[in-house]
């Protein structure tokens, strides 16, 4: 029994024999405890990850819950045709890409700038103090972020809204939370507040890895502070910036569902709807299961293509890919 229980550590170490070639029954018996430990996890992935993937078939059906996955009538690409010829698709794509563009321009550089500024701070205690404070919003929920936005920008009692109102000399009050043209600025503002502090961590880690001798050498060569920044500090974080840029563009269809949904209301829906919130609204709230699933499937497939495309591009550019 003892030989049976002990995994063949020697065999694994020698690597001369592919363990995958073991007869299934022998393997199951020999590693029964390990397989037993896998079962709960595998059940989870089967139920909550792979069963929903099977459920994507309803994008090609007119799904009726009563009839189920097998009983509902098949309709081929009807929902996709409706999506691409209807008015929704253009609006969803535009809203999503526009937000992605604004994020790339305003949100992406923010942590880089903050990290570079933090790196120039010479008082360690003050640096840690600032870090501790600007990391806080990362841990707060989007619900809290929305509530703060509401308490600051609401038309009735919003603090900042009131300040702007009196600074601009009165006039009609602006309802920032309802007016469509203020939706995107608020999204960007929230993202800046929530992510630009925490985002510095990865860049600060890269900056911490810079060999102090490089600065020393640069000084020897007569480089002042500014030239040390351009020729030592900035090159040191360039690979990190590239990797983060690839990661971000691979996920550019993924706005935070919670953030967008919380800011959406009946007045700004035309500019607010992105793929995920539209899927929830049409699918779960209105019961248009099949159409919403088709929209979700389109977004999922486009997302996979984007991720692999960005990875391929990264490798072409000579960067270490993500996988």
């Amino acid at each position, binding site marked *: 029994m*003892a030989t049976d*229980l002990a*995994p063949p*550590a020697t065999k694994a170490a020698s690597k001369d024999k592919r363990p995958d070639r073991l007869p299934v029954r022998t*393997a199951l018996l020999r*590693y029964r405890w390990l397989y037993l*430990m896998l079962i*709960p*996890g*595998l059940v*989870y*992935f089967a139920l*909550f*990850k792979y*069963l*929903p*993937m*099977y*459920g*994507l078939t*309803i994008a090609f059906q007119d799904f009726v819950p009563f009839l189920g996955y097998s009983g509902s009538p098949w309709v081929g690409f009807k929902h996709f045709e409706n999506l691409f010829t209807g008015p929704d698709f253009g609006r969803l794509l535009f809203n999503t890409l526009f937000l992605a563009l604004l994020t790339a321009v305003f949100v992406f550089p923010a942590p880089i700038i903050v990290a570079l*500024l933090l790196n*120039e701070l010479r008082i*360690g205690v003050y640096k*840690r103090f*600032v*870090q501790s404070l*600007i*990391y*806080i919003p990362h*841990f707060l*929920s989007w*619900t809290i972020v*929305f*509530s*703060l936005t*509401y*308490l600051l920008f609401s038309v009735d*009692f919003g*603090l900042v809204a009131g*300040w702007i109102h009196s600074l601009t000399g009165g006039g009609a009050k602006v309802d920032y*939370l309802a007016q469509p043209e203020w939706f995107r600025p608020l999204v960007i503002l929230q993202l800046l507040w929530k992510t630009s*502090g925490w985002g510095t961590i*990865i860049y*600060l*880690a890269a*900056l*911490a*890895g810079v060999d102090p001798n490089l600065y020393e050498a640069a000084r020897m060569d007569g480089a002042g502070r500014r030239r040390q920044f351009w020729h030592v500090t900035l090159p040191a974080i360039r690979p990190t910036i590239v990797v983060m840029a690839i990661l971000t563009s691979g996920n550019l269809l993924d706005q935070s569902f919670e953030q967008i*949904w919380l800011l959406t209301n009946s007045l700004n829906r035309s500019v607010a709807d992105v793929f995920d919130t539209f*899927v*929830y609204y049409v*699918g*779960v709230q209105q019961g248009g299961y099949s159409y*919403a*699933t088709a929209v*979700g499937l389109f*977004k*999922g497939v486009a997302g996979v293509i984007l*991720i692999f495309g960005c990875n391929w591009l990264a490798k072409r550019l000579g960067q270490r890919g993500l996988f």
Partner: protein
Amino acid sequence: MSTQTAETTAKASPVRHYSSLGSRVFDTLNVILLGGLALITVLPLFYVLAGSFATEGEISARPFFLWPENFVTSTYAFVFANDTLLRAMLTTIVVTAVGTVLQVTLTFTMAYPLAKRYLPGRTLMLNLVIFTLVFGGGIVPTYLVVRDLGLLDSYWALILPLAINPFYLIIVKSFFQELPQALEEAARIDGCNEIGVFFKIVLPLSKPIIATFSLFYAVAIWNDYMSPLLYINDNQKWTLQVLVRQLTSPDAANAIGSLDSVAFFPAEGLKFAVVVIATLPILCFYPFLQKHFSKGVLIGSVKE
């Protein structure tokens, strides 16, 4: 983070003395700018805290304050006497505690066998896990599965669909692979089976990473708004996040109507108080969170 920051400071700014005027001006501006940034970050939170201790009249009369004129606790007295609010707090605490234990248990038990390179079928299972990182069924099919399992309006719907984060699973698996194998083998030779090895040898060695991922999971459940939005309709089963949303939104009137009616109702103060209550536990654990999360970010980035 404190140790890392100390290293950062020590490494990145090795006694650099600049005495030029431009350099000193920059340093001063930098200190002011970053201080301002820190202020912008925390001022909204202070304002909300102050508002939760202010009277209804002061909230509507004064544009801004960080310390209320009349310091009152009547808003909190109302909160802690209100069934809907208390139930939401209790629900959130229980769901977070049970969920975290379950998630950590499932993640670590599954990661251990996946870390064994000699296990037949391991590559296939790993690939199946990794695939879920880039593609999934999406909102509606997942919703239908949860509904078919009869989990709508059940607290389990807030836990089970998120039971294992595949990304965390892979990080924990990599951590197990790095553990020295000699101890495990010694235990096996002593007649321990794999489950014994896992509990007696591996888990005690993993305490720091268990702490890190417990915090990751706990914060995620505590802050989760999407799951209750999707799966919970019964307002008796609201979590704190849902309540915060219901009370601080342009259509808050509907939600307030559903709260048990009482003579004194702090409509304005309540908006501030619920935000404080939903934020406070996060801020209480903040020193641990900061330390463990920054470690987690760096583990993740290294493994990518």
